[in-house]
């Protein structure tokens, strides 16, 4: 069954206040076109989660669409900090439930497997745990191992309302492949109630059937499939295109101040009518061609 939809249609199914798991990691496979459309549609009060905070979450926070972020810390790698997320935390306008990469991944894993709780060694003795016990006491607890008597920290499963995942290849049913490392994306999708797949390449199901070991996202978890080239710009999509360093530098610079964020949003989000208009704004075909990945290197 075809689940093809436009980006606007898919985004319109997300109510304000929903918990959205995002597939981005720092500056790669971020849901950028998705984030821009969420902002244009005025969706607010979101809870966003991801193991490592990325540019998609930062842009959403910068636009005031996010009330709570559940993440394991993050940055724009060498391009800088997640200025909007950090400012929100520093000014208290953003509730941050901060974990580590594995504790986030285990929370998604527990959600994906229908486990009631999952034990973990991480976080013990750290201020991350002390912080969590204050601001999110319902998410962490302890259990005595019935086999050894040892007391273990246990985490509550994470079950987002929807996972939005940027992939390289998908069919119209939502069966999808991810090239390169998958970080938390498979567990995010399988933990969530449903998934929106945003794909660079749309292939016939016939292609999926010829190499089904690659299918990390099964169609039956997917509610919408959006086929949208360069939808992760300015972040990278392994084997398809490289990150746009110049644009990310501009973003990192702009987001150092609230004024800069407003200007950036006016120019690249509110100031464009859709994704195609955005692509023209950031340099059009000529610029995008410079970013197309080398087939061997993958970037």
């Amino acid at each position, binding site marked *: 069954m075809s689940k093809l939809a436009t980006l606007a249609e898919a985004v319109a199914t997300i109510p304000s206040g929903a918990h959205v798991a995002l597939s981005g*990691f*720092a*500056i*790669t496979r971020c849901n950028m076109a998705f984030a821009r459309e969420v902002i244009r549609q005025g969706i607010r009060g979101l809870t966003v989660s991801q*193991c*490592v*905070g*990325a540019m998609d979450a930062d842009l959403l926070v910068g636009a005031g669409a996010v009330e709570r972020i559940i*993440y*394991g*810390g*993050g*940055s724009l*790698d*060498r*391009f800088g*900090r997640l200025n909007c*997320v*950090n400012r929100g*935390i*520093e000014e208290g306008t953003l509730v941050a439930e*901060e*974990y*580590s*990469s*594995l*504790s*986030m*991944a*285990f929370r998604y*894993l527990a959600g994906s497997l229908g486990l009631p709780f999952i034990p973990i*060694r*991480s*976080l*013990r*003795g*750290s*201020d*991350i745990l002390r*912080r969590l016990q204050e601001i999110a006491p319902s998410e962490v607890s302890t259990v005595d191992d019935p086999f050894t008597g*040892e007391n273990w920290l246990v985490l509550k499963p994470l079950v987002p309302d929807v996972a939005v995942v940027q992939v390289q290849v998908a069919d119209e049913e939502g069966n999808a492949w991810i*090239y*390169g*490392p*998958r*970080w*938390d*994306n*498979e*567990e995010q999708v399988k933990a969530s109630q449903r998934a929106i797949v945003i794909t660079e390449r749309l292939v016939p199901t016939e292609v999926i059937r010829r190499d089904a070991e690659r299918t990390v996202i099964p169609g039956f978890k997917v509610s919408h499939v959006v086929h949208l080239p360069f939808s992760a710009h300015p*972040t*990278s999509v*392994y084997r398809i295109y*490289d*990150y746009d*360093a110049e644009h990310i530098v501009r973003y990192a610079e702009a987001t150092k101040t609230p004024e800069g964020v407003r200007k950036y949003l006016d120019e690249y989000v509110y100031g464009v009518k859709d994704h195609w208009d955005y692509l023209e704004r950031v340099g059009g075909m000529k610029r995008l061609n410079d970013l197309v*990945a080398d087939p061997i*290197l*993958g*970037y």
Partner: protein
Amino acid sequence: MTAYLEYTPLELMAAAGARELKDGEVVAVGIGLPVVASFLAKRTHAPNITILFELGVVDPEPVHTGVGLADPRVWYRAKVLSSFVDMLGTVLHRGLVDVGFLGGLETDMYGNLNTTLLGDPRGKFRHFVGSGGANDIASSARRTIIIIRHEARKLNQAVSFITSPGYLRGGGEREAARLRGGPSRLITDKAVFGFDPVSKRVRLESIHPGITLEDVLANMSFEPIVPDDLPVTEAPTAEQVRLIREEIDPEGMYSR
């Protein structure tokens, strides 16, 4: 071929880090100097170490320097491309990571690391990167190696926030928290430190060539244990410097 008799402080730190790795070990690294140190070890005395990146990358062979773990440049020619659960779960949490490299905003005399915030967590503070996999590595690796700049504000009396636990308040506190391993080395641009087996306090092991004990102590905010005989840190060999500059970090992004 030019002989590399000169080296930068960062190149010395990379060489000192590489020296800590034994052949055949499994090493979890973040981006930056630890990657340089690990690749240096792999190309010299430890060809069979396994290098892991938390997001799901094993033993890559980059031909271009990346801006971070998220940069496909550092995934190039990996042997495994998988996930956090695979790297941090089935390898690290399972107990198979021998060495983890960690850096941070500041550390203290027990090797506790802060990558989260500076200031008063309850009042005014600046928020930075946070943990990523650092806390997980600090909790489950068999030993960790801290690499940090030698500055008074980075080698602090106490850290504002314990992101990645070292020996907590020393003695048996880390064991009591049932965390695996703990910091084995603290490498700065002035010296190499270890940790006292009993008190778990930072102990000076060697001082880098051309650096005085005074330089070392004057630029840290806590008192390390200072043993009577203090060797000079082994300088990187010309071959090590050549490998770093010509093959591992030709753009000098992390080592110059």
